[in-house]
């Protein structure tokens, strides 16, 4: 079997009904995408397939076209420089962080579709579960990206390490 992941074609062996999530994690070693529920409820496994946010835990690998472009958290940017990643870091969004790969993939897909999402847009698109409770900072970070990376607009006043 073949998949195009993060711009690279990978060849691997797996049963046809293996979820894409487990191929990414086990056959391809890309563990940034997480297993949370296995039934598409929590969104920790979200990746992009041709730009569409997709819950990879219920997507049989055999149904993904070898030519489809899959992007995982590892491939979102070359140097952690995606605006969503930068906003996430600037606002200290993650707590335990386990759900955040999925959050970031869902948010980056949303922002591509709607560069200036309303709160209602965010509510509708961001259905990922976070048990630590980062929702309000997730929302703030999405608005920061929409405002071109204006971190101050979030009003959190976090001091960077180099400035302490």
């Amino acid at each position, binding site marked *: 079997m073949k998949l195009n992941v993060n711009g690279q074609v990978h060849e691997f062996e797996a049963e046809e009904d293996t979820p894409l999530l487990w191929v990414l994690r086990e056959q391809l070693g890309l*563990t940034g995408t997480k297993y949370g529920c296995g039934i598409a409820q929590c969104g920790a496994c979200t990746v992009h397939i041709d730009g569409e946010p997709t819950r990879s835990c219920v997507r049989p690998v055999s149904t993904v076209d070898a030519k489809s472009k899959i992007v995982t958290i590892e491939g*979102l940017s070359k140097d952690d420089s995606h605006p969503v990643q930068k906003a996430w870091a600037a606002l200290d969004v993650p707590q335990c962080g386990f759900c955040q790969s999925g959050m970031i993939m869902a948010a980056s897909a949303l922002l591509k579709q709607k560069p200036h999402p309303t709160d209602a847009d965010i509510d509708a698109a961001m259905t990922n579960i976070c048990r630590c409770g980062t929702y*309000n900072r997730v929302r703030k970070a999405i608005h920061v990206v929409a405002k071109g990376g204006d971190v101050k607009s979030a009003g959190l006043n976090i001091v960077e390490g180099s400035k302490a």
Partner: protein
Amino acid sequence: MSEIASPSRRSFLGKSAGAAAGLMFGFHIPFDAVAQEAIAPEINAWVVVKPDDTIVIRIARSEMGQGTLTGLAQLVSEELDADWSKVTTEYPTPGQQLARNRVWGSFSTGGSRGVRESHEYVRKGGAAARMMLVQAAANQWNVPVTECVAEKSVITHKPSGRKLTYGAVSDAAGKLQAPTDIKLKDPKDWKLAGKRLARLDTVDKTTGKQVYGMDLKLPDMLNAAIKDCPVLGGKVKSFDAKAIANKPGVKKVLQVGDSAVAVVADTWWRARTALDALPIEWDKGANASISQADVNKTLKEGLDASDAVAGNSAGDIKAGLSGAARKIEAVYSYPHQNHATMEVMNATAKWTPERCEVWTPTQNGEAALAAVSEAAGLPQNKCEVYKLHLGGGFGRRGATHDWAQQAVLIAKEMPGTPIKLIWTREEDMLHGRYHPITQCKMTAGLDEKGELKSLHMRISGQSILAALFPQAVKDGKDAAVFQGLNPPGPEASFTYGVPNLLIDHAMRNPPVIPGFWRGVNLNQNTVYVESFIDEIAHATKQDPLALRRKLLKDNPKALAVLNAVADKAGYSKPLKKGVYRGLAQCMGFGSYVAACAEVSVSKDGKLKIHRIVAATDPGHAVNPQQIEAQVEGSFVYGLSAALYGECTLKDGQMEQTNFDTYNVLKMDEMPKVETIVMPSGGFWGGVGEPTIAVAAPAVLNAIFAATGKRIRDLPLKNHSLKA
């Protein structure tokens, strides 16, 4: 600064010669760090300064999202006068802790204790290291140490202006004798502690690089999936390993303990798929006929039973109630809940007859080591645990290490091969360590003016200690049951002044293993007390804020957080039409907290929580922006519980198996949270848990204000709020 002698006897904090070498593992890559650490000079157990001025601060407690890693590093760095931009952290291993005679104090990370329990000795560790570094510089310059000052990792000889960095003298400093007379800074002089610093562990969580337990890769590792008897307390009767022997990737099918079956395969997905196809017969045991109604009935009986143990009493409750002009009574209940950490339970174990190693996310590395040793059949000094980052803890990963023991038992059957065991979400839901279940009967005695003069609070239900630490139950009393209800004290006391008071507990333990669930017993106790205070206020036509203020008049700290919330929420001003307020306050985990919730309920019964204003007085605030994050997060945890959280038994088995049947709060239901952090000094309280407890009662009281419906049994999903 006093003179420090040299050379060293290496006595301070139990320093030992071999300490820096070998056993220390870096935070992110547990395997590459060994060689590096072997050459890094250790100043003391808490501080390593590398020649390039990088500072490594050792963190004994586990980071699970709550920010303790950054907060503890801030405290050490403050006293160390470190350049914060050069600060990194690492976990010492439980094995090293054992070898060094528990030099790092407790590893246990729970009860919101990370900072409040260790702040003094970690700060002393930082201060001692600074004194030794400054002394080493003074020695090199051959000048009195009193002429030298340290700032941002640079030591300056004031008269001559000469400078040395910490890295330049760390080797010499590490050889000095540790000081014994250590003076800590006054918190008002803090430059790093108390500041809104960015976390040290954020970036890798935005790139997928952070390695959680589930993500570990070891050479030649195999993967295991497991199924424990779904009926609690049941056992394995038989299974047909041959039926799945030819499934792809399967290496071994085995029984684990007397209640579980595991499949080991090359990948986890193959192990799990094969396990699902494995025919297993269970001996369901004595609990197979137990359902939720049976448990509830047993607890209800305890509400009026005579075998209760008192946790707090004052005056004469009997006379107080019998002589009351008016009595008010209400019965409440609070269900079992699963922690539902986002990362399910997992551990990787490698066993040989000589040594057992385990890699796992744990809130208590020492307890994990003890559990591993027991399962491995090897003494603790022949075992080691490597703490990996936790995808959530919330109390599930601290008191028991059942999953780690399972991994060891599997690895024992395949000596020399690392086995990574990952639970399914379903396994995680069926074999939790559940929030204890209780019911509560509140009886108030009022005088002819309607003043609260007597209060009997009877709790009936489950004891965590009886199940997990029975030795801690004294004379039938589980003291933890009375969290937030205790007589005046620094930890978790009952805040209101009531002349005649009795708070007692009739222990009723269903066959469900309980655990410490973030917020623990403060959660339901605060629901009971704060709902009932609200009921008294409405029954006596008093404003709920005014009544609380009256009852808190002798408790200035509790009153202060309540007033702060009322002010910020604009309590004296009317809200926009259809929006109603509810209040709650409590004292727990050493901190004082209060909340005001604003809700509306539509005609068809849909609840919207608009805003919560919350205040916390934790005594000292080490990182206010992280406290805000904890408070916001605590409302997600507390409101998930209030709205949806419930695990119910049917035929001895939990009915909720995944997030489709165990709903939690999501983005669209998240209220705006405004956090007031108001440290008043003089004590140290926790911040990870206390505000969870005020989430539910503040919302329940607001729902009453909106609808006139008093919800006394959680979760809310079981009730209609329709007009």
